[in-house]
Structure formats: C-alpha cells, structure tokens
C-alpha cells in the first residue's frame, strides 16, 4: 500500500512516515535524497541519521534519477522517500541553471516508482499558502512541486496531510 504525505514543516510528517514504512516490514529502505552543500546540510543529515538509528533502515543514497534505486533494492520491500521536495530541487537547479523539464520527469519517474515498489511512503512539503510574489524560478519550482504532488496523490493508495502531528486522510485510509 503506497502513501503520500504532505503538510507544513516540522509538523511530524517524517516521523509518521517512518512509522508507516517500518510497519511495512523488511527489507526496509530509506532513500536519502539530500545532496549536502554546506555544514548546515551536513548537520541536518546527521540529525536525521540519529533519528533513524535503531529503526532498521538500510540507506539508499539517491539524489536524482530515482528509478536507479530499484536496481540496488528489492522492489517488494518497504521504502521511505523523504523528500520529494529535495529531489525536485536536485533535478531542477544546478550551476548551469534551471531544468524546466524536471517536474514532468520526476512526476513520471515517481509514478513509475510507486507502480514498481507498491510499499512506498513519500513525503513532500506544502508550500502553497503564503502571501508572496516570487521570482520566476521560485514560482516554477512551486508549480512543479504541486504538479508532482498531484500526480502522486492520484498514484498512491493513501493521501495524508499532517497538521501539528495530527494526520488528516484525504484519500484511502490511515495506515496506522
């Protein structure tokens, strides 16, 4: 059973996602999506690794081309992909500029990922309710992430929103 989770930052999405993934049994994979760029990223990664310690996750490092993960893992296993937001950032922006095809590519690849590995939990970020007028790149990123979120909401069995640690089911059931 696949699950898509979104919501505001620090509301408990990752913790709940870890619990769902663990309940999916072994083999249990954590797909690490962040490509560290500075000491702050290193510290964040270290904090996340500590939070996952003892949960029994095997870590798959994959910052782009997400389907390559399945060449190194058992597709019948339980996967936690945290986060869609980081993946899109990796695929969309580089020193050479913005790749406008990235959202379409990622929507297609993640839909295929869920089809091939049905016990997948994906975490995204709800960044759509602020009062700001952004530059074209930021707006393209928001549009792109929403496009992927909506594709995953169609593809996944469960769609959940986490608000202050409270889980609201928008589609399917509460897995826990």
């Amino acid at each position, binding site marked *: 059973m696949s699950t898509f989770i979104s919501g505001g930052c620090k509301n408990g999405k990752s913790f709940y996602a870890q619990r769902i993934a663990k309940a999916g049994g072994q083999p249990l994979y954590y797909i690490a999506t962040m490509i560290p760029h500075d000491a702050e990223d290193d510290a964040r990664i270290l904090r996340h690794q500590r939070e996952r310690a003892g949960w029994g996750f095997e870590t798959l490092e994959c910052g782009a081309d997400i389907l390559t993960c399945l060449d190194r893992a058992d597709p019948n296993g339980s996967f936690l992909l945290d986060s869609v937001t980081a993946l899109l950032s990796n695929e969309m922006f580089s020193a050479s500029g913005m790749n406008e095809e990235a959202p379409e590519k990622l929507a297609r690849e993640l839909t295929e990922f869920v089809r091939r590995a049905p016990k997948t939990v994906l975490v995204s970020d709800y960044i759509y309710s602020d009062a700001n007028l952004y530059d074209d790149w930021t707006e393209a990123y928001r*549009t792109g992430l929403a496009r992927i979120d909506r594709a995953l909401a*169609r593809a996944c069995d469960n769609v959940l929103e986490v608000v202050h640690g409270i889980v609201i089911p928008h589609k399917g059931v509460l897995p826990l």
Partner: protein
Amino acid sequence: MILITGGSYQGKLEYAKARFGLTDADICVNDIDFNKKCLAYIDRYALDAIKRGIEPADIFKENADKLSDKIIITTDISSGIVPMDATLRAWREACGRMNSFLAARADEVWRLFCGIPQRLK
C-alpha cells in the same frame, strides 16, 4: 454560493470545471464580473484592489444579492511568513477578511489538497 479554497496549484479551478461543467466563457479570471457564473482567483482581484486603495471584501458586500448562484475560487494565502512589503501585508489580511465574509455566506465551502476536494462546510 459555493466557495472553493486551497493553496496555489492544488486543482481548484480544475475541480470547479469538472463538477459544474464550466467552459472558459463561464469563468472570470483575476477580476470580478457578476455576469459570469464563476469568479476565479479573487485573491488576484484583491491585490489589484489593495493597490487602488479599495477594501476587496466591499465589492461582495455591495453585491450580496448577486452572489447566490456563484462559484467563487480563492487562493488561501494566509499561512506563510508576514511579507516585508506593506502592500503584500495589506493584501494578505484583506484576503483573510474577504474569504471569511464569503465562507460565512456560502452554502458549501470546499478545500482542495493535492487535487483532492474536502468539504469544510
């Protein structure tokens, strides 16, 4: 009146079109035209109104008799950082007042999340 809310790019207009069979001719985008069945993205009208020194909710209060058969789509911009820019700050608060006024009078209020509708009222 039916009010459809939610963050940016969540599928609000797509939902309205599918549910009510709206064509582009039925929809007024980013502005207010009470001859149209659907007023989409009134948050954009609100920003223009603020820039002209008008309270965005007023046009709905003054035309309350024309609201009953309308489908109104608004973007919820209420849950981010308070903007540095004074116009955007005023816009953010005015949208809150406008949306609350409309939601109180709406027969149905729907919120779209990742393309999925949820009935709030």
